[in-house]
């Protein structure tokens, strides 16, 4: 039993990391209906930029601020040069554009900062702490705490600020939002900038875990099943979906893996998400009921 709890907790904690990436997706999707495939590339770009700055002997705080500024600028540039010209196009077209964008960002990040693997030390010890019979790494706890804080902050932002209100209006009905005088391009630019900030946080935590390298950008692919499970437009869903996927992945690898030769972590999330889609296409917390084909 305690082994099962161990596996479950381990899965939940890695799920937190998935949620962090999924959050960036949800931000963009909620406000502009775009499935931003470049989110993973943005995670890589943010982490690489930060690491390279600290390696150039910049203090931690300065590097963080500079990276933050760069990510915000990047978000604005994307809105200006990719999304704006594609307004009113089908969601498939927009998706393909972000796929192209991910190639640009990945290529640029590595051309700029090199392709070697960087170590990233955030100063959070990765030592296990004993809770009853379960051992949890301090790093994982901090990551979970950061994720929780971000979700709380984002929820507050959406509920209480004027900009958040504008976000919700745009998400609800773009035409009506324009009619009452909201500027779509402003809202989108802010959303992309925010997604850049989320990417930075995810990039730092993932980077500290795995090392900052190209494979960071593939975490985007892990976030897709999370989104399907949680619903593309739900912040809470991103968290719950991430936790579920993490837990399912770990338990499947432990309990089913040995019978099929292991390596189930690569696909089990997709198959679960696929099965789930067939039963409930809008996800656990998704708003829009999907049109039946």
């Amino acid at each position, binding site marked *: 039993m305690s082994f099962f709890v161990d596996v479950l907790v381990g899965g939940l904690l890695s799920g937190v990391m998935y949620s962090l990436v999924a959050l960036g997706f949800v931000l963009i999707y909620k406000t502009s209906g775009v*499935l931003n495939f470049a989110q993973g590339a943005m995670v890589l770009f943010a982490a690489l930029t930060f690491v390279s700055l600290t390696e150039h002997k910049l203090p931690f705080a300065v590097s963080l601020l500079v990276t933050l500024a760069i990510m915000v600028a990047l978000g604005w540039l994307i809105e200006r*040069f*990719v999304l704006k*010209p*594609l307004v009113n*196009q089908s*969601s*498939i*077209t927009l*998706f*393909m*554009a972000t*796929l*192209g*964008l*991910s*190639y*640009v*960002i*990945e*290529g*640029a990040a*590595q*051309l700029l900062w090199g*392709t070697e693997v960087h170590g990233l030390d955030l100063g959070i010890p990765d030592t296990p702490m004993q809770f009853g019979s379960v051992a949890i790494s301090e790093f994982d706890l901090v990551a979970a705490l950061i994720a929780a804080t971000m979700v709380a902050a984002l929820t507050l932002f959406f509920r209480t600020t004027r900009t958040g209100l504008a976000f919700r209006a745009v998400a609800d009905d773009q035409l009506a939002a324009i009619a009452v005088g909201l500027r779509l391009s402003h809202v989108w630019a802010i959303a992309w900038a925010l997604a850049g900030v989320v990417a930075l946080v995810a990039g730092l935590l993932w980077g500290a875990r795995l090392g900052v390298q190209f494979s960071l950008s593939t975490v985007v*692919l892990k976030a*897709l*099943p999370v989104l*399907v499970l949680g619903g593309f437009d739900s912040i809470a869903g991103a968290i719950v979906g991430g936790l579920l996927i993490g837990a399912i992945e770990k338990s499947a690898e432990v309990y089913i893996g040995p019978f*099929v*030769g*292991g*390596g*189930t972590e*690569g*696909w089990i999330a*997709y*198959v679960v*998400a*696929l099965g789930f*889609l*067939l039963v409930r*296409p809008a996800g656990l917390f998704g708003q829009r009921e*999907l*049109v*039946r*084909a």
Partner: protein
Amino acid sequence: MRFWLVAALLAVALLVVPRVGNTYLFDAILTPFLALSLAGVGLNLLTGYAGQISVGSAAFMAIGAFAAYNFNLRVPHLPLLASFALAGLTAAAVGIVFGLPSLRLKGFYLLVSTLAAQYFVQWALTNFHWFANDDPSGVITAPQLAVAGIDFSSSAGRYVLSLAVVATLTFVALRLVHSQTGRNWMAVRDKDLAAAVIGVPIFRSKLLAFAISSFYCGVAGVLWAFAYLRTVESDGFTLDLSFRILFIIIIGGLASVRGAFFGAAFIVVLPLLLSRIGASFFGTTDSGIAELVEMILIGVLIIAFLIAEPAGLVSLWDRGRRRLARLLSFVPAPQS
């Protein structure tokens, strides 16, 4: 007129090129170009014509390659082309399974289904050693290529074999998109509700699109493995290849059979061109940098094409020809 132009082009490609080309031209350019073109045609049937997006093309190529290998290995005296066809059918069958969710899902929710195909297939092919005939390395040498006693194993031979297969299947695809099936696909793509109202069988059309598209990808996979890579391994069919095939049809032109060829030519030639440019202008042969520049360029081009020329290179080509025709006024304008 158009027919004779294509016929002449084919005759040159089939009769003249094998005599004058060198190994580099066949192995590095023409054979991969043909295999990718066929995969592009397959994906274009599904994405361009039927409107169902897929990022799992490489998975179906892998299924085709492994199926052809196994049919060849386990069925004695099976003609090579029969194993190609069986490989295509196997890929089609799997394609139907992963296409089933399309009956309920639309747009990029389908991405998850095709991504599932991509990951699951690659995992299954690596993990179950039966597929690779228990070969410890997991990298199998492709079988000898011989049709009706004629050996096609040389560089030129593999090119000719690929060309024959691709030309035949492309001809079928061209007929198909102008048939009732093709019109049904476009109706489903443009407005499924309206299509249903005028009596288009939506479910059947979608599944058929998945099946036929997977068939094409499957055969393309056989060519990719047997004629180009000359090994059969699941590492030859990564997600990146799937993306590249998607890029081929975006750059070449969605919903255009010709577009797949334009796009494939572009995707094959671009990296070679870039490394040449890098070598002659900057004196660097750093393949890493060339690769990154290629990534950025492809990404920029994808976005540029989506914004400025959604119909792809094909439409540029046609417009160029029309303009030229107006200038020269005796060249007949292409029918659009």
